[in-house]
Every structure is written in structure tokens, then in C-alpha cells.
């Protein structure tokens, strides 16, 4: 099951490299490289199969198919697909991990109230 998309979707293609802080109020699909931080408090981030993200991430939902290095705080759910390589601590309400996904870090499953507090 994928994190629900909210309608609008911004895409960063695989040839794009961004260094800095990203924030927004629409879903984001990253298939390129991002270094810095990503803040999408009420929306979802998807790291595509070619995506390489080195950033702290705050989002409602996070789906990883590529590489993600950094701590993840998701108020709803995190999905690690089989090709995911994630290094960093994950804090979320729900997590799903496909066989083959690689994760190095702490997993903190929070209740709804805790997750909302962490997002503030």
C-alpha cells in the first residue's frame, strides 16, 4: 500500500541535483539527488528508484525505493520498498518494510499524539 497522495505532486527528475532546504505543501517525488532537509508536514515524500537523498525528512508519509541518508519523522507512515537503502533513525506511527530493504538505524513507533507533537 502506498502513502496516500493528496493530489498535487512535485517531481525532481533523476538528472536534478538540489542542495538546500526543501519545504512545501504538496507531495514530492524525488528521483534525483537532494542534500539538506525536506519538510512536507502534511504531505508525502517518495524517493524514487534513482533517488539519492541526504537529508533530514519531515513528512506525513515517506516511501523509499532508492537511497535515503538522514533521520525521518513521519506523522503517518513509512514504507521501505525492496530496493530501499536507508541509513538513519525513523520515527513514525506505522512502518512497512519489504523483503530486501536495507535499514540501518533506530525505529521509533509513536502513537498518534506523540507523532503530532514530534512534527511541531
Amino acid at each position, binding site marked *: 500500500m502506498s502513502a496516500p497522495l493528496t493530489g498535487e505532486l512535485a517531481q525532481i527528475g533523476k538528472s536534478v541535483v538540489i542542495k538546500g532546504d526543501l519545504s512545501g505543501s504538496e507531495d514530492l517525488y524525488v528521483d534525483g539527488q537532494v542534500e539538506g532537509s525536506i519538510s512536507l508536514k502534511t504531505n508525502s515524500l517518495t524517493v524514487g528508484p534513482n533517488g539519492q537523498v541526504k537529508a533530514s525528512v519531515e513528512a506525513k508519509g515517506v516511501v523509499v525505493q532508492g537511497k535515503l541518508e538522514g533521520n525521518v519523522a513521519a506523522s503517518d507512515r513509512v514504507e*521501505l520498498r525492496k530496493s530501499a537503502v536507508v541509513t538513519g533513525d525513523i520515527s513514525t506511527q506505522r*512502518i*512497512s*518494510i519489504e*523483503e*530486501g*530493504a*536495507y*535499514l*540501518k*538505524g*533506530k*525505529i*521509533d*513507533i509513536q502513537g498518534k499524539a506523540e507523532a503530532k507533537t514530534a512534527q511541531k
Partner: protein
Amino acid sequence: MASVTQNFMKLFRGSSGGPEANSPAQASQKLTRRSSGLGELARTWDTEKSLCVLDLGSTSAPNIRHFTARGHRIYSEDLLTASTEPGLVTKDEQGNVVLDSRKFLADNLMYPAAHFDIVLCWNLPDYLDESLVRPVVGRLWSVMKPGGMLLAFFHTRDAGPDSPCYRFHIVGSDTLEMQRIVLRKEATLRISSAISPQSSSS
């Protein structure tokens, strides 16, 4: 324990050792086994609160669910996969291919001293390269709390180079589900080229 090359070949058999070893059916095959050691640890995590657990096996969603549902903190660190990092390959004074244990410990198992109550080591020492076993055990000793517990399995006799490597899922208080590990294709290619650069170019 064997040479670096032999150890990697063990892993490759799980993913690219030939049509038989590589069959999806074999890779997805799951076996169950009972473990009295697991049962012993289960009594601890079922009765104590807010334990800090380190799982050194392949990332396992059932294990994460198992511990987080009981209010424990779980850390996942797949050391076997981490040991296939090609940058670790070096040569000793005799020219033998070995893994750089200092570099390995600079990148892995970086935790405060006396941090973990329980470490799930599974059968990692039987599959980890010999040059890493002693340093890793030393680091585990330092990151475990006094009185902490470590679960490890060892082959009772030499299982031979074809012995498959498994990921372990906790499915009951003393029951494990074992699934053959399929190493990532890119990892096998990278480490092959690090061990023998000439063969990788063909």
C-alpha cells in the same frame, strides 16, 4: 571461518551462484525452527519494560513489529551486508585479501557504551569475515549493558561453503522463521570487482 573471497562466495550463492541457487522459490522459501535461547530472551522482553534491542540481522519487519509492539526500542543494523562494502577490502602484510576492521568499526556499531539490553546476533559470526569477528565482538561487548544478553547461533560442525545464510524473523515466543538471504545484486557486483578488478571488467 574462511577467506574474504570464500565468505563472499557464500553470500553470492544466495543470489547469483547459478540457476539452482538463484531460483526465486528457493530464495523465498521459509523454514521454521524452535530456539530455547530465544525462549529465554522472550521471558525478559515480555516482562521488562523499555528495553533497548539491537538486531544485527537482515532488516526484518516482523522483528521491528515484535519489539515496538511491546514498547521496546529497536535498532536495526545489517552487519553482513555492511561488510560487503568494497571500500573495506585491503591487503595484509602477506598480501592476503582482508577486510579493514578499523574502517568497518568507524562506520558501523557506533553507539554509546552500555547502550543495549539485548543484542540479536543470530549466526553472524559464522558468516562474517574472520578479520572482522574479533573486533565486532569486542565492540558488541562495549555497547551492551552489564547483564545484557546476546543471542547467537553457531553451526555445530563445519557446514561447508554451500551453507545458506538466513534472515531470522521472530514469529513466536520460541519460534523463528528463517528465510534465505538474497544479497543485493549491486553489492555482489561491487564487491566482486573490489576483490578481483580484472574479472569484473569482462
